[in-house]
């Protein structure tokens, strides 16, 4: 009879998460055709967005306070950022809740929320490398316009991107808790995507949005996933203003992470495992 094992130490926990990350990354390579199709769909969406904006600039380009080149550089960055931050844990967890497989996830000695964060990180790393390739193509087409304004701006961007990942993950994790009540992740996934696409700045800089949408967006975290990192990258916010934006991002990241944790605890108390 073995003696009982004591709780894992912090370093043992971290090793566990890193080991999970390693396997999650490997699993990302399992479906090449699906990855290519996803990339094609995203590129198509981006292409259509560019065509629409091109048409808008042909019609009323002079009335907009963003040049055509700046707009295309913004859209390229937004596309790449969004691609890198495409986190599939809501579909994955939603399906596992629907099929009752979530039971096996909850039986691990690691924290469920943190494990999902590392799953999201694996998505981000995998998609990030693909996004880097796309960025290289976009940069060669757009030239200097696509480069960060300064090394300082690039530093702010990197910090902002890291925080954007935590916000994006925390939002996804928060939303997916709803599946513990609805037992299907699809509706939740669809509503999150709709809000994200509208308010993150993926389709256009938020400065071009109608005032009402801008006001709503200002009170929500979605703008900090795409719009804020690009704002810092392009140097439209510098110095104290840049630090202020990073602070806002950090608050949203921490807030949503904690909120997700609270909701998860409540959801698990009333959990039913589907399928007996």
């Amino acid at each position, binding site marked *: *009879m*073995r*003696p*009982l*094992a*004591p*709780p*894992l130490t912090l370093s*043992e926990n971290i*090793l*566990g998460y890193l*080991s*999970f990350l*390693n*396997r999650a990354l*490997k*699993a990302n390579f*399992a*479906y090449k055709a699906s990855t290519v199709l996803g990339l094609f769909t995203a590129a198509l969406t981006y292409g259509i967005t560019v065509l629409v904006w091109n048409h808008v600039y042909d019609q009323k380009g002079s009335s907009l306070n963003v040049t055509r080149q700046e707009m295309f550089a913004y859209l390229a960055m937004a596309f790449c950022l969004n691609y890198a931050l495409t986190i599939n844990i809501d579909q994955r967890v939603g399906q596992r809740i629907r099929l*009752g*497989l979530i*039971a*096996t996830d*909850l*039986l*691990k*000695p*690691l*924290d469920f929320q943190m494990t999902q964060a590392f799953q999201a990180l694996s998505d981000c790393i995998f998609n990030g490398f693909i996004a880097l390739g796309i960025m290289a193509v976009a940069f060669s087409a757009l030239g200097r316009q696509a480069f960060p304004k300064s090394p300082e701006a690039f530093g702010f961007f990197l910090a902002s991107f890291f925080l954007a990942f935590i916000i994006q993950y925390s939002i996804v994790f928060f939303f997916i808790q709803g599946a513990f009540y609805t037992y299907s992740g699809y509706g939740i996934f669809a509503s999150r995507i709709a809000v994200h696409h509208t308010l993150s700045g993926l389709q256009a800089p938020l400065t071009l949005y109608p005032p009402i949408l801008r006001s709503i967006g200002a009170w929500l975290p979605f703008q900090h996933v795409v719009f804020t990192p690009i704002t810092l990258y392009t140097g439209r916010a510098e110095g104290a203003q840049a630090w202020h934006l990073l602070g806002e991002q950090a608050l949203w990241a921490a807030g949503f992470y904690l909120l997700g944790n609270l909701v998860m605890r409540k959801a*698990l*108390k*009333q*959990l*039913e*495992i589907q*399928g*007996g």
Partner: protein
Amino acid sequence: MLTVPGGLPKMLPLYPMNSALQVQNLSKSYKRRIRQPGLAGAVKALFSTQEQELHAVRDLSFTLQRGERVGLIGENGAGKSTTLKMLTGILVPTGGKVEVLGRVPWRERRQLALNIGVVFGQRPQLLWDIPVQETFELLKTMYRIPPDIYGLVYKEAVRRLGLEPLLATPVRHLSLGQRMRCDLAAAVLHAPAIAFLDEPTIGLDLSVKEQVREFIAHIQEKFGITLLITTHDLKDITETCDRLLLLDKGRLLFDGSIKAFEQKYASDRRIVAETHRPLDSSVAGPLSVEVAKKGGKLIEAEGHRVVVEYHEEGAAPNLIQLLLQQLQVVDINLEKTDIETIVTRIYRQPDRAGD
């Protein structure tokens, strides 16, 4: 205190009490929306708030000592899996108390997870898209399994469950039987103090079932694992367990040794005799009277076959002697009702636990 060869650093002393788990008046009920059949019923249910309460587990109490091997049986919907999910901390009970290895499972799920192994038949814990070996390696780190323990269990699992050709295969390419074997190995890689096995042989063919049972019995004995198995295949119980819990509609109907179970529910035994010549129809009547005098009951007397049932201990010699005297017997067998027949009979009783 027992230790593992090579010694294990940072281990807590054994749980001071000898009990592995204690369950007191455990209950779990669910609320279900009432839904009428058909499309109209589905539409109506969208606007209906009518609910009914379903009692999955009611007032369940039992204790398991460390190292015990216990089978939990019951019909579909008897509450077996729900009980296991509460014991592992996945579900929060509606009422009652549970302590597993001194911890309240749903409050200390992660800490408990380090010391338990769980198989939910048809719900694999293996990572779906990568080779089996990768999951094993992940579990090794995740559960902080000492190398000597990992090496020992891994070797045994690979050998006894025939996993060698499967290790490099992505889980999604495995058959059900292959996956179940790998999943069982994954559940016990850390030599847990308790293994909760929910239908570990579901959907497996006979030879794989046998492999699985042998592995469970071996690993249990090697590490003194407390075993709680739910199954519909009673051979799983007879080959790996000493004690039986019978659940019926969420209530505990029986708790005791398998022998006690047989004694309680299967006091009837049979003598089956084969005669040299076909029996004359006139024989049955007088034979029935004689058999009754010796404490038996003639069940069948047709063709070459005679079947006598008896309940009293010690009646067999007299009944056999009677049959040998009265008939030209060429073969004779004593039959005991097997556990499957007993359980089937219990399930068929309309007024057992009741609602």
